[in-house]
C-alpha cells in the first residue's frame, strides 16, 4: 500500500532516490580518495573495504525503510499518535512500523548494490555457495541490528520525550564508520561492538570468513549470533511502554 501511494508521484520519487544516491556518494568518494594514497588498511585492500562498506550500507538502508516510524517516534509521542496505536488490537511495534514506510530510503541500497557489484569480483574472493550465504546473512542480520537500534532510540523517548542525539553515533555512526572493518578502530572498540552492541558480529567476523582469513564456520554464522540483540532491545522497549504516561488529551 505504501509503495503504491508513493509511486503515485513517480518523478518526485525517482528524483528523490537519485538525490539520495548522490548524497551517499560522498562517503564512497572519501574512501576512494584515501585509497589513491594508501594501498591497504590493516591488510584490507580497496575492494575488500568497498565490499564491507556496501554490506553495511545495504543493511542500514533496509532497516531505515522500515524503521522510519521509530526514527520520528518522539514526534509520535508528542502529537498523540502513539496513544491511538495503544488502543488498537494489533502489536504496537507492527503498527508503528507499518504506519511509516519510506521506500525513498532505498536509494542508498541501490548505490550500495552498485558498489557491491563492482567490488565482489575484484576482492579476490572465490564466491562459493557458503560465501554467498555468509554475505546474505551479513546483510539481513545487519538490517535487524540497525532496526533494533532504532527501537532502542525510540524507547529512550518514553523517558525523555526528546530524541537523544547520542544514539546517532550508533545508527548513523555505525553506518558511517562501518565503511571500514570495525577492527581497524582498535581492540577496545571491537570488543564493545562484539559484546555490547554486536555490530562487528555481522560485519568484521563474517568478512574474515568471506575473505578466507578464517576457516572456522563459527565466523560464518556470527551474524546469526548477533540477532540475540533483539532480546535486550525488545525488553527495553517493553519497559518503556510500561512506564509510558500519555502527554495529555
Amino acid at each position, binding site marked *: 500500500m505504501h509503495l503504491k501511494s508513493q509511486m503515485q508521484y513517480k518523478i518526485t520519487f525517482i528524483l528523490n532516490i537519485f*538525490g539520495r544516491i*548522490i*548524497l551517499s556518494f*560522498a*562517503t564512497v*568518494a*572519501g574512501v576512494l*580518495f*584515501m585509497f*589513491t*594514497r*594508501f*594501498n*591497504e*588498511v*590493516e591488510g584490507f585492500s580497496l575492494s575488500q573495504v568497498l565490499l564491507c562498506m556496501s554490506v553495511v550500507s545495504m543493511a542500514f538502508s533496509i532497516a531505515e525503510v522500515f524503521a522510519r516510524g521509530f526514527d520520528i517516534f518522539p514526534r509520535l509521542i508528542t502529537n498523540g499518535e502513539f496513544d491511538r496505536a495503544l488502543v488498537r488490537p494489533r502489536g504496537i511495534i507492527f503498527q508503528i512500523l507499518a504506519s511509516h514506510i519510506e521506500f525513498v530510503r532505498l536509494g542508498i541500497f541501490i548505490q550500495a548494490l552498485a558498489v557491491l557489484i563492482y567490488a565482489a569480483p575484484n576482492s579476490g574472493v572465490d564466491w562459493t555457495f557458503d560465501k554467498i550465504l555468509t554475505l546474505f546473512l551479513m546483510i539481513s542480520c545487519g538490517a535487524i541490528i540497525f532496526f533494533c537500534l532504532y527501537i532502542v532510540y525510540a524507547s529512550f523517548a518514553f523517558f525523555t520525550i*526528546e530524541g*537523544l*542525539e*547520542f544514539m*546517532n*553515533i550508533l545508527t548513523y*555512526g555505525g553506518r558511517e*564508520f562501518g565503511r*571500514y572493518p570495525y577492527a*581497524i*578502530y*582498535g581492540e577496545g*572498540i571491537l570488543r564493545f561492538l562484539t559484546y555490547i552492541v554486536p555490530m562487528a558480529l555481522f560485519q568484521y567476523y563474517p568478512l574474515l570468513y568471506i575473505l578466507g582469513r578464517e576457516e572456522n564456520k563459527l565466523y560464518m554464522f556470527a551474524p546469526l549470533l548477533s540477532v540475540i540483540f533483539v532480546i535486550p532491545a525488545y525488553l527495553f522497549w517493553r519497559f518503556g511502554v510500561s512506564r509510558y504516561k500519555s502527554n495529555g488529551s
Partner: protein
Amino acid sequence: MKNISYNYISYATLFKIRFIAGLQYRAAAWAGIATQFAWGFMEILAFAAFYRASPDVFPMEFSHLVSYIWIQQAFLALFAPWGSDVNAAETIINGNIAYEMSRPLSIYNRWFFEKAAIRVSRTALRCLPILIVAFILPEPFGMTLPSDPFVFLSFILSAVLGLCVVTSYSMLDSISVFYTMNRYNAILVIFADFLAGGYIPLPFFPEPLRKIAELLPFAAMQNTPLRIYSGNISGNDTVYAICLQLFWFIIMLVTGKILMRNSLKRVLIQGG
C-alpha cells in the same frame, strides 16, 4: 552618520537576541557534545589505522591531523555548511517576507547577522567541553597548542573569515529559494561539505583535485582555519590562504546582495 550607527546597533541587538535564544537548549547541547566527541574519536582511530599501514605517504603530520579533527568537532556548528537557517526559506515560501520588506532594515544584513549568531551561540555552548577533553587526552590522541601566538592569532582571524564565508554561502542558498521555492537543497550542502574538507581533510585528496579544491570558495570555510591552527599551513601560505578567504567572502557578499535586490524587486506575494 547617526543613521548608520543606529542601524548597526539594531544588527548587534539581533545578534544578541539570537545568541541568547540559542544558549537555552542546554540538554540538546550535552547530547551533541557527547556525539561529536565520540565521532571525532572514531575519525582519529580510522586515520590512525591508515597511518600505521604506511606512515610515509601520510600527507599531514599525525599530530596536525589530530588537532584538525578536534577543532573540526568542537567548531562543527560554526563551520558546517548546513543548519543555520533562521527560517529564511520558510519566510520566503509562506509570504512573511512581505513583513520583512516593510521593516527599515536591510533583509540581507538582518538575515546575515541572525545566521551568524545562531552559529556562534551553538558553538559557544558546545566547543569548550570538547576542547578541554581533547587537551587532556594522552599523547597520540590529544590536542596540542599552536607553536606560537602568531599562529593562534591568524587562526582566530581565519576562523572569523571562515564564518563569514559560510554565512554568505548559506545566504546564497536562502536567496535561491526566491527562484526555486525549494526549501532544502541537500545535494549542494553535501557537495560543499565534501569540498570544504568535512569528510576527509583536503591534503588527503589526490593531487590535481587537491589543488583545484583549495582554490574553491568551499576551502575558505573550515579548511583554512583548521589547517592554520594545526600547523599544516604556515608562513607565507597563511597570508595567501587568508587573502583567498577574504576574496571569496567579498565575491559572495556582493553576489548575494545583488541577487537579493533583484529578487526583492520582482517578488510576488500571493494571497491577502
